[in-house]
């Protein structure tokens, strides 16, 4: 899965705010809207201080929620591909059991709905944070 919104589309997200939860931050790092070197949270404020509590900058973005999310995207994609292939072989007279084919379709559907809900939750949280006034 290629990173969404690489260079040039940074306006997809507003600059980070201090109270952004860690998982949103990690997801943003993974989405390529920030540098992945871990210094994303250290944006300077006008008075020269940083907004990030110590410890956050050292976190590995490949672990945790972002990794979970992207692994899940891959899994769901895999399930959808399997389901499509199964349906194809069912419709073209392949030696497959229709119960198994329909179950794989249903599983792919459920997994996708789950992912969609997680994505919706993430976006809700993100919008909530976006509206925080300082």
């Amino acid at each position, binding site marked *: 899965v290629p990173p969404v919104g690489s260079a040039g589309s940074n306006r997809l997200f507003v600059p980070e705010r201090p109270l952004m939860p860690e998982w949103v931050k990690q997801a943003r790092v993974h989405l390529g809207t920030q540098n992945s070197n871990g210094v994303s949270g250290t944006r300077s404020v006008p008075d020269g201080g940083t907004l990030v509590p110590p410890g956050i900058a050292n976190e590995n973005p490949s672990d945790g929620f972002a990794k979970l999310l992207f692994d899940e995207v891959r899994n769901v994609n895999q399930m959808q591909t399997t389901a499509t292939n199964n349906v194809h072989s069912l419709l073209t007279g392949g030696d497959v059991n229709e119960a198994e084919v329909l179950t794989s379709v249903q599983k792919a559907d459920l997994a996708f709905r789950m992912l969609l809900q*997680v994505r919706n939750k993430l976006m809700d949280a993100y919008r909530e944070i976006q509206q925080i006034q300082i």
Partner: protein
Amino acid sequence: MIRALDISTSALVAQRTRLNAVSGNIANISTLKNEKGEAVPYQPREVVFQTDEAITTSGASGVKVDEIKINESDPLYRHQPNHPLAIKEGKWKGYVAYPNIDLTTEMVNALESTRAYEANVGVMEITKNISRETLTILA
């Protein structure tokens, strides 16, 4: 949660196999020769199920077809001396060997297998619904 769907699917596949065996038995109810053309009446197939440990979730297991056993019981003999396949000598001289298939038993098996299939589809429906319901926690 999704593993529960797999368990139900394994049951669907197994019951489907059983139903296929019943179809074969009923289709061959008057088959007097085997696949090699010998005068051996068809012997009914019986499907044996086994728990499938490969499909397991929290103690529940799926089911798989262990083997399709051939019922070795004696054929039914009917006295038809003029039949081309009538037995020429011995105890059953003048008789024709027919498959030992009881249509009533086979129909009951088919019905039972259908009911089991329906029950498993019902369980899948429930599993599907609770999965969907669960997602609304997050929504």
